[in-house]
């Protein structure tokens, strides 16, 4: 803490109200301003929004993700490789989990699947969702994660050895994705992908803001 007090004021920098968040939160939400507030980053704000479910479901819980949009800039002279990569469907925004999860591997696939969604197929919800899981991961290292996610995707079509690539993030925002709690487990509300019930057991009693 470099001698500074570890206690920081917690308020929305735009409207001054108390932002919402559970006991483990490092990212807080201001529903009126639709902002995510990160006290550890000098109360830096990110646009926050909830996504409307694309499929019907039962009991709903919203899980926060960092949504990163940007573009990959490549330097590659090999025409065959470039042609192979051009044939791939371009990836959209990346969704990286901001909530606490104990097996992150489940989400590598989810990040890619969300990235492959048609542009404009995700709609923002009008109301403010409840309950929302605590955001415990800060928006750190997202650019590198996005770069590697892109490279892993390109590697399916052609080898990426020696490829010079950098990801330039244009926008980072805080997206609340609906999940449904079902008998057998959880189901995401965008694609209907099922997850083991225990995966989100830490959210069995989701912290209500």
């Amino acid at each position, binding site marked *: 803490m470099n001698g500074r007090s570890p206690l920081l004021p*917690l*308020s929305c920098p735009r409207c001054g109200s108390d932002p919402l968040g559970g*006991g*483990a939160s490092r990212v807080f939400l201001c529903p009126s301003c639709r902002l995510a507030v990160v006290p550890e980053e000098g109360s830096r704000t990110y646009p926050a929004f909830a996504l409307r479910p694309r499929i019907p479901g039962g009991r709903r819980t919203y899980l926060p993700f960092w949504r990163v949009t940007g573009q990959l800039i490549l330097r590659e002279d090999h025409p065959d490789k470039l042609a192979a990569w051009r044939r791939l469907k371009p990836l959209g925004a990346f969704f990286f989990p901001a909530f606490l999860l104990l097996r*992150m*591997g489940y989400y*590598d696939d989810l990040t890619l699947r969300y990235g492959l969604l048609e542009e404009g197929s995700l709609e923002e919800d009008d109301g403010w969702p409840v309950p929302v899981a605590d955001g415990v991961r800060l928006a750190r290292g997202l650019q590198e994660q996005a770069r590697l996610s892109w490279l892993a995707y390109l*590697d399916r079509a052609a080898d990426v*050895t*020696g490829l010079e690539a950098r990801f330039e993030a244009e926008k980072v925002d805080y997206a609340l994705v609906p999940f449904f709690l079902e008998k057998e487990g959880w189901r995401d509300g965008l694609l209907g992908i099922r997850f083991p019930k225990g995966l989100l057991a830490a959210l069995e009693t989701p912290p209500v803001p």
Partner: protein
Amino acid sequence: MALTRTLSCPACAGAVAPPVVSRKIRCPYCGKALYYAGEDFLPRLVLPPAFSEAETRGLLERILRQRLLPPGMADRSRVLDRRRLYLPFYLLTGRRGGVLETGRERVVSDALGGRLARFSPLNRLAAASGDPELVQMAGRVERPRVVVEEDSRVVLGDFRYFYPAASLKEWGFDDGDLREAALARLETARPARLEEMAAHGEVVDPTIPLETILEKGVAGPGGRGGELAILEVQPALLFLPVAVFSLAWGPRLFDVMISELDGKALSGTLPVRRDWPVAAGALFTAAAGFFSGQVLRALWAASSGLTPAQTQVLRPWGLMVLAVTFLLAAGGLDVAWALLRTPFVLRVTGAGPRLDREGPVPPSPLNPLRRLLAAALVEGAAGALAPRSRR
């Protein structure tokens, strides 16, 4: 996690108690919402016990029915106390990624070229010439080749580390005994509510600083140079429930710890049944006595029909046989003594029960004799090995 220092509100400078369960607190004086940004605050999770109280008692009974324990211990021992400990562990989850240059081996076989080459006049000429170099050159054309092509693998995956947050030596087991069960049941983890946990057991405080774990257990973030870099680390504190039983067996007290995640016995000591060592000791003594008697009887029978001259010749041999018999009998008694008097205990470990000695073996009454024999042997040997002076 013992936050003892006082904090002051950035708005009104009032004293604020350090947070225990939530990063978000409120100043008791000005009422402002505050955020605790200290690195020492971790999300706390707990794995719920997988067994009811009756089931845990059943697990203990199963342990007490082991063959090495005194018969009837499961029914006749008294459980004086049963308590639950919540032991703290660090669970570090995160992402690791990078591009690994792996290379790819490919077998290149010019099958058609090889077949055609076999019929080529040049190869036939080489074969006919008998020149080994030419024959080898001709053969090389047909052999498939392994070509290493450059290739990379993009890795973006998660990692999970599990370390004890308090020294487990006090309880006589290590984290390996709980790791497997904890990771297998990780998906049942739920937020730890310390007050609720304290009502059901004793919550052990973490004593090992997280920095030590991060320094020693996880490579520092940002490691590059072809290796996988740690992109993100999220530490959490995970409490695991362990049942501790205190038992009375006769005048003595024993403790047994059982994991409440998978029912595995973790540590403790239990008495060992005495009837087996007693029987073994008695058997050794009887065998030694019987053997000595038989030897003496044989000697007596053999010596009764001998002339005095023959007796004179065989006397040293007879004495030697007697000495050996005596030593064997004494050795048998010694083993019997050790079996009877050694304070054996059954040590319960995560790897299974182990027969162990609780203290030193009491000195045998045959020790003076043993010392005498050892001294005689050593002195005899020393005398035999002493350098002889030159005349």
